[in-house]
């Protein structure tokens, strides 16, 4: 069965702190895809990143970085020097090879205080 777990329901940090959002997944597929989405208070989900199961290279994009470890079935997301505008709910998601469904975690609400 496919499953994504985001154990952190809500995190509060002060601006400029670094914060890591955890994501653990379960799948029987050998090929799969992982994603992170941001849902700001406006409500629209914004795509952040896609990672293929056969590519374990970590990725950095500005203040954002992602750590993919197949050995622990984790795909964690770190925001460096957080800003108030980072406040949102962040969802981790998993797709099977045929992309017929995205399995979402329950989300982590990040509050960045000034």
């Amino acid at each position, binding site marked *: 069965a496919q499953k994504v777990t985001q154990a952190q329901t809500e995190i509060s940090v002060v601006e400029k702190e670094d914060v890591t959002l955890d994501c653990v997944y379960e799948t029987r597929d050998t090929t799969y*895809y992982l*994603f992170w989405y941001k849902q700001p208070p406006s*409500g*629209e989900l914004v*795509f952040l990143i896609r990672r293929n199961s056969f590519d374990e290279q970590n990725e950095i994009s500005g203040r954002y970085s992602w750590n993919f470890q197949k050995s622990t079935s984790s795909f964690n997301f770190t925001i460096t020097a957080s800003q108030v505008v980072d406040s949102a709910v962040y*969802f981790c998601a998993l797709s099977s090879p045929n*992309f017929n*469904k*995205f399995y979402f975690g*329950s989300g982590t609400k990040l509050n960045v205080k000034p």
Partner: protein
Amino acid sequence: GAGVSQSPSNKVTEKGKDVELRCDPISGHTALYWYRQSLGQGLEFLIYFQGNSAPDKSGLPSDRFSAERTGGSVSTLTIQRTQQEDSAVYLCASSLRDSEAFFGQGTRLTVV
């Protein structure tokens, strides 16, 4: 348009009435998804279209829910005889084949 467009943005309906929610995907996107998000909850999968076909409708909660897609483009999600538990934000997403999904702003449905 540039993104996924959903209409209406908000819909208030009386219990027992039928509602139709519309989704205009990004031009050229062959895959289309409907999800439901209840207040403070995660995303619940409803249905997936590839072109006009729906190979996966496993998430539709009951036979009151149906969806169609015409011309490989616009999709309509219909809820018949609405119930209060149907109140939620209904999200539509589209994607190129075998690619990440892009979401619309959602339709907030309130059943009173």
